[in-house]
């Protein structure tokens, strides 16, 4: 896995009689030993090699924030930022599913419709048929997983291109959604229901946001320190204390800044439940992708399916389950959308939902070509998209302008991905 942050350096021994094919001292190897200056150099070298990582999207977010703040001073207000946070959650959870699919080098065009079906299943079961609310939520998510499994089956076992399977799904499932919603075409979320609380509930106690920030920072620092200790014990190169301190510092500043904005200013409502759930999905998915065999196998299949097959990986199982994950998260995200819009409707998840979700994953830095990407790109990309929408809304821009700007940003992200891929090819890195 080409995890930018985890590249370890070896203490290079000078080679005397070795071939020129193996450079005696690779510049990569010296970074650890040279502290901070080494990192800057390493960073510059990566940029030249086309390994942009999250840099474009972070720069983009800063530019967006500055531009909109200059145009309208309420962009960075608590209300506006909390709005961005809440609106990011539902689509962001769907984008996490898309990241899984993109890591395979495939695409899932059905997530919008599946979100609609998920919301419709919940609404019909819970509101129309009086099924237990929690059970209805569970069944809606399970329906999404089942739909994804079906897509995966057609793709993996029968060999229909994922593009076509999910395009058919896109049409078919929105048909199912309309049928489920029946004549009225919309079912409002009852007040106090689980789904209403998904985006409607805020932890008003200030301790919640600060506590979560503290827990996040401690967990992050703890995991870095623990890993560094284990690596030292195994006599492997480890992160220097200065790097751990720097990383922890950055995470702490971000976490507490967010907590502050959610808690303190006038009109702040506290920590939204939606954000907590989104973060939980992100952390869990990131763990699965980076720390488990299953995640490793997703990267392997995305990088070279034939190599993965020969290594004894059940490629079809990976493909089917990844589409199931995508469907499941799409349905879960659909419940958030229903919660935000006050109910399930015939055309929930239609329109630009699909494009926004895919755009978020790509803008965040996950490659369309498979095998490269991070779960966190769902968060970064969705922040970009929601910031643009929120900013344009504040400026009173019409939706046609929003569409055009979002389209341009998506195109820019894919251009960056393609160019960095080409630079990496010439620099011999993937």
């Amino acid at each position, binding site marked *: 896995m080409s995890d930018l942050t985890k590249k370890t350096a070896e203490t290079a021994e000078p080679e005397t009689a070795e071939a020129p094919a*193996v*450079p005696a001292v690779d510049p990569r190897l010296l970074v650890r030993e040279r502290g901070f200056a080494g990192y800057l150099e390493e960073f510059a070298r990566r940029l030249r090699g086309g390994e942009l990582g999250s840099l474009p999207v972070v720069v983009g977010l800063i530019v967006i924030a500055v531009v909109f703040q200059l145009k309208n001073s309420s962009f960075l207000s608590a209300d506006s930022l909390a709005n961005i946070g809440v609106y990011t959650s539902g689509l962001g959870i769907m984008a996490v599913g898309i990241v899984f699919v993109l890591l395979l080098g495939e695409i899932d065009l059905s997530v919008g419709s599946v979100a609609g079906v998920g919301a419709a299943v919940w609404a019909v079961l819970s509101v129309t048929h009086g099924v237990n609310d929690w059970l209805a939520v569970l069944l809606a998510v399970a329906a999404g997983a089942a739909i994804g499994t079906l897509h995966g089956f057609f793709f993996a076992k029968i060999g229909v291109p994922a593009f076509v399977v999910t395009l058919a799904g896109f049409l078919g499932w929105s048909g199912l959604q309309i049928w489920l919603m029946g004549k009225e075409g919309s079912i409002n979320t009852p007040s106090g229901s689980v789904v209403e609380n998904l985006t409607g509930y805020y932890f008003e106690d200030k301790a919640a946001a600060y506590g979560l920030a503290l827990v996040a920072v401690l967990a992050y620092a703890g995991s870095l320190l623990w*890993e560094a200790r*284990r690596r030292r014990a195994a006599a492997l190169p480890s992160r220097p204390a200065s790097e751990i301190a720097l990383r922890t510092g950055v995470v702490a500043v971000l976490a507490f800044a967010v907590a502050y904005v959610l808690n303190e200013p006038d009109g702040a409502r506290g920590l939204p439940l939606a954000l907590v759930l989104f973060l939980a999905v992100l952390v869990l998915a990131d763990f699965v992708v980076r720390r*488990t065999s299953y995640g*490793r196998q997703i990267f392997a299949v995305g990088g070279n399916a034939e*190599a*993965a097959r020969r290594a004894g990986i059940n490629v079809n199982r990976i493909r089917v389950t990844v589409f199931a994950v995508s469907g499941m998260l799409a349905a879960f995200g659909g419940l958030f959308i229903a919660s935000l819009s006050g109910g399930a409707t015939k055309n929930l998840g239609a329109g630009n939902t699909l494009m926004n979700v895919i755009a978020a994953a790509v803008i965040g830095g996950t490659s369309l070509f498979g095998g490269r990407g991070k779960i966190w790109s769902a968060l970064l990309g969705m922040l970009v998209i929601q910031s643009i929408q929120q900013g344009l809304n504040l400026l009173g821009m019409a939706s046609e302008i929003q569409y055009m700007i979002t389209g341009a940003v998506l195109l820019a992200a894919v251009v960056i991905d393609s160019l960095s891929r080409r630079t990496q090819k010439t620099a011999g*890195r*993937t």
Partner: protein
Amino acid sequence: MMSVSATPVLALRKVSKRFGAVQALTDVTLEIHPGEVVALVGDNGAGKSTLVKTISGVHPVDDGTIEWEGAPVRIAKPHDAQELGVATVYQDLALCDNLDVVANLYLGNELRGAGVLDEIAMEKRAKELLDTLSIRIPSVRIPVAALSGGQRQVVAIARALIGEPKVVILDEPTAALGVEQTAQVLDLVERLRERNLGTILISHNMADVQAVADRVAVLRLGRNNGVFDVADTSHEEIIAAITGASDNAVTRRRARTEQVRKEEAR
């Protein structure tokens, strides 16, 4: 020949394989002893790849027996071969470019602690393995795409050793490599012998074969066409066996007596 134990680790006895109307292999016999490098040579279409695939379980044999350490076994699927301890390194490498060296070495065999990838143990063992094989790569944490062709090939071979196999099959390991890189791979083949592994080396390159192989098994038109000791066989004799120029009573007799001698030795 190197010191050779009495029982071959792997032996094919009169193995035949047919694809529809094509008789790909006819009564092929091959023995691999521990600590021995057997080169498998032959013209295109001679059946080298088919033979290797019967051993690695891709194509089960139709006729004949495969013996593993003296006992007959059945290899019906790739998994069977892996279970026995046969590792195959394919010509087209089969590495994942986007994964780093450690991840590639352990792909499909990840070490886990409490269900989580144990990156530290994998990295440590990967380094140890590469060190014992004297493989020099810049870092075990760089993506395989950043390695040269020779480095990729040695990583692919090192990966075959993760499962502690007893027989390693190398399919054209030096094709498409430069001079220096070829030397690197051949060094590694010698180290496989030092580790007492049986190695089957498929190659078109007679220089490579003569550099590292102990014996050369020639296939021609799906049949055995002689097994030669590299030490006392000339380049020309092997070429003659490959092309069929030596297909005459004398060589056939020699192959036969060799076979008899083997059987007696057993």
